[in-house]
């Protein structure tokens, strides 16, 4: 599925980054670990339930200003969708600052 731009991705239960001081940075998931390079680490560090998808895109476009903005956007959307399909990410709908939907 394609993530919505106003949703706020956060790591799913059982998924977490390993500690910063370790030589190899990975995203831990149940029964597996995903190696993270520069851009993928920048994305995952922003999957904190606070950044919206759009904010992640904008920040990485600034960080990787030499790359074409539309390529950065496409790559991020594809990466987030893949991680969601692998049950590594949840997308909280927009609603409040914590990414929690307000119950009306």
């Amino acid at each position, binding site marked *: 599925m394609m993530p919505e731009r106003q949703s706020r991705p956060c790591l799913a*239960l*059982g998924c977490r980054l*390993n500690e910063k001081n370790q030589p190899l940075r990975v995203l831990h998931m149940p*029964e597996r670990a995903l190696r993270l390079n520069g851009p993928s680490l920048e994305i995952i560090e922003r999957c904190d339930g606070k950044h919206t998808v759009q904010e992640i895109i904008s920040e990485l476009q600034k960080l990787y200003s030499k790359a074409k903005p539309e390529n950065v956007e496409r790559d991020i959307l594809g990466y987030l969708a893949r991680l969601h399909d692998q*049950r590594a990410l949840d997308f909280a709908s927009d609603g409040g600052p914590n990414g929690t939907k307000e119950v009306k």
Partner: protein
Amino acid sequence: MTTAIPTALALIAELTHRCPLHCVYCSNPLEMKHRADELTTEVWSRVFREAAAAGVLQVDFTGGEPLARPDLVDLVRAARGAGLYVSLITSGLPLDETRLDALVESGLDHIQLSFQGSDAEPANEISGTRAHAQKLRVLEWLKRRRVALTLNFVIHRRNIDQLEEMLSFGESSGAGRIEFANVQYYGWAFANREQLLPTRDQLNRSVEFLRRAEERLRGKIHIEFVVPDYYAKYPKACMGGWGRKLILITPNGDALPCHAAQVIPGLRFDNVKDRSLREIWEKSEAFQKFRGEEWMSEPCRSCDRRQLDFGGCRCQAFLLAGDAAVTDPVCSLAPERSKVDAILAAVDESRAEPSAKPDWLYRSNPA
């Protein structure tokens, strides 16, 4: 030519061989380690630190039943403190809510809870214990706690036709992952093989059913399906390749490249009480024996798939062909494949099976 030593990524910690269940397909060896031989909390804690320093990322606590260790909470804390991701592979016995809270608070990342089926009676027959009701209780406790959950169903001939019931049970359990893992034929499962192998028809139906389920649940629940490799065209990449990714420590500290490696005659295993984990990983005779490609004979040696499946499982090669250095006989290209085909033919002929309880060899329990 020397083989470059890869980095170990995961540690399988067999904390004990003790277990309240007596599953007929247990992967433990027939000869088990006694409680008195088990590593202490201190030695395990050192092993976790050495593992993390050597590059290991994750540890699976397994057994036997890891809950049988009174120091399990301390072990979880030690492994987390070393920087590892900690999974508990468990039957859910013996456990109460207080202990579960302590495990979660000590940093447990993930629980894999095993089920022998979705119905009590056949499940209890397989485990030789009235364990099913307790597993349901544990599942309810887990729903109210923040810890990742995988349900693991062990699949075989007597329950493979009930996948639909197991799946709908699993979907309502709150688990993020469901594994349908066909029995692999080592240890006690090898002894009970004739009663456990599904027929080809059964397997084909199950593959089709789970393929559709996987599609439907994508992004909601991750479905993992492990086929019995006797039916596969190519062997499994056992342990991700011998001495390539995984290291298993037995309850008394022997370091093995594969769960069943002790069946291979003449292999010498180092013990974590005598040498550091890194030293064992890099230099132990057992790990070097089948690392890389030097040991391979034809058809593996010139096969395009040798970097995909690494020749299959060395222990299975020994169990089925009597030689640990030949191509895994489950491979369709293996000279010894006819032995596997003969076993499968016998399974298909025995299709009209009696409803009576088979003559199971139940897993015993060490002192």
